[in-house]
């Protein structure tokens, strides 16, 4: 069995802030994912590409997002969310995406 890696690097909050809208799978007007030349950012975002929509409850807020709706939590846009909320969105997304043959590599300082 071949294992498929998904990486969540240290910089995941920043990367998701910058490229979060690209995790939704391709539509006619938007190609899915970001160019591979962006390195570890592309590795992370392209690993998290989802077919569905984002719908999570994070710290009492409802976070939504889809190809047409920009990611927001209770109408607060992605660019004014606090890092811990973005962190939870990324973690939730990864645990939703991961299939049994996937390996999720999580980088962190306190383990």
């Amino acid at each position, binding site marked *: *069995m071949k294992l498929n890696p998904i990486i969540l*690097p240290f910089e995941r909050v920043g990367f998701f802030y910058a490229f979060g809208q690209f995790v939704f799978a391709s539509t006619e007007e938007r190609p899915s994912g970001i160019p591979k030349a962006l390195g*570890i950012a592309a590795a992370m975002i392209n690993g998290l590409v989802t077919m569905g929509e984002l719908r999570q409850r994070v710290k009492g807020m409802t976070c939504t997002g889809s190809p047409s709706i920009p990611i927001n939590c209770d109408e607060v846009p992605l660019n004014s969310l606090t890092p811990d909320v973005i962190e939870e969105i990324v973690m939730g997304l990864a645990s939703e995406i991961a299939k049994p043959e996937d390996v999720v*590599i999580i980088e962190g300082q306190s383990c």
Partner: protein
Amino acid sequence: MKYTISTRGKTFDFDMSKRVIIVPYSPEAITAVRGLYLLMRVIKGIPRIYGIPSGDLVESWKKEFFNRFLSLLKGETEVTKVYPQMDFEISTESLSVRGKIVRTALGVEMEVKKAPEVQGSGPSAMLTWTTSCRGIC
């Protein structure tokens, strides 16, 4: 399948049969983990190899696998211009791949630990290992 990665004097073992692997934090661990990601991508990218010319089947399969491995590794690193400086070894029951990345140079060597059985002959011949894993697992 086991990945052994050493970088700047530290060695890390990743045994993929375990469900959870915890690596204590250090700057070297980051290089090792990103190298692991790179190698896993390469292994995942290797297709089933068809159309091996006649002659020594094992030897030509080995050569084909080696070429695919090296070109995929090159492809992954050349686009991003990120070269994790490391020595690595990927080992399974039947196969081991050893390699090195120094600055922008890649080196790989591989070894078939257990010779596979050849089934059939001519264009329809197949290589199978008697274990449940076929070459890479």
